[in-house]
């Protein structure tokens, strides 16, 4: 079973990898975006870690809803409401339970991903974070490691796609040949989950 401490480790591990990879995310965001994805997410996850340290919630759902709220209010770009909605909706789906099973997490995360698709209007193949998240959720039933691999492969697979959502979509065919920064950061989030599980 997964407790609140597991979910705090997930957020801390993600914040650490966003810190390490911020420059790479911004570099990916510079040819097809507005070159702020790394710095925006870094600001957001720094706020998440600070909020979790200040008032550590006692339930998995509480950790994720607090984290989501911090991302919505601090990121400043589209990734804020998108990641914020992902975590908040996942947290709400987990409810007040003190511990949840891996299966419950997978189910809640699917509800979170569905909410992101509704909010942003993106579907798989649109060259967005969804291209990493959907395969990750599908693989989560197998293992955390499988989810991590699926997310990383999903992110790499965005390279030949043409963007149909967000600022990159204005570039049309010029968006082809660049790995999507949002799918890349989504893979970091899933890798953080795997790290929290100690796999």
């Amino acid at each position, binding site marked *: 079973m997964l407790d609140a401490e597991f979910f705090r480790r997930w957020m801390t591990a993600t914040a650490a990898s966003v810190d390490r990879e911020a420059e790479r995310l911004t570099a990916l965001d510079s040819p097809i975006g*507005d070159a*702020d994805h790394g710095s*925006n997410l870094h600001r957001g996850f720094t706020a998440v870690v600070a909020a979790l340290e200040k008032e550590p919630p006692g339930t998995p759902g509480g950790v994720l809803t607090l984290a989501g*709220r911090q991302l*919505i*209010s601090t990121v*400043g*770009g*589209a*990734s*804020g*409401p*998108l990641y*914020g*909605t992902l975590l*908040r909706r996942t947290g709400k789906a987990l409810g007040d339970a003190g511990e949840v099973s891996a299966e419950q997490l997978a189910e809640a995360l699917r509800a979170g991903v569905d909410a992101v698709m509704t*909010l*942003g209007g993106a579907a798989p193949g649109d060259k967005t974070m969804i291209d990493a998240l959907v395969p990750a959720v599908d693989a989560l039933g197998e293992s955390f490691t499988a989810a991590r691999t699926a997310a990383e492969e999903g992110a790499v697979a965005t390279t030949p796609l043409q963007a149909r959502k*967000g*600022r990159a979509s204005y570039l049309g065919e010029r968006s082809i040949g660049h790995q999507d920064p949002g799918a890349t950061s989504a893979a970091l989030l899933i890798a953080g989950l795997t790290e929290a599980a100690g796999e």
Partner: protein
Amino acid sequence: MSDEQLVGIVLVSHSAAVAASVAELAKGLAGGGPVVPVAPAGGTEGGGLGTSSELIAAAAASVDRGAGVAVLTDLGSAVLTVKALLAEGDELPEPTRLVDAPFVEGAVAAVVTASTGADLAAVEAAATEAYTYRKV
């Protein structure tokens, strides 16, 4: 028409200058009549380009007179942030609506309509209708 019955308007742009200028333009074109509460929420709290949920929530609270708040946005994160705040439930006055409208034309239509004492649904309809005005 008392001030209490006017719908409030919030204008959210990635740029503080754009939000403030469109607010000024819309109020200027609304002419006489009751002064509609209009608040810009542009850029990030640090003064950069982007969207701040704190600025949006503060702007919405500042224009709330009890008749509802219409929020108009430019694009991308502005739209998504307002939607996320609405989903949150308790961040914006009740009722607040994200109005699907062109930013400049919709803002003028919304402010002019609100200045007649129209309700939130009428303000929303007028702003949305601005999409149908073809320029060529």
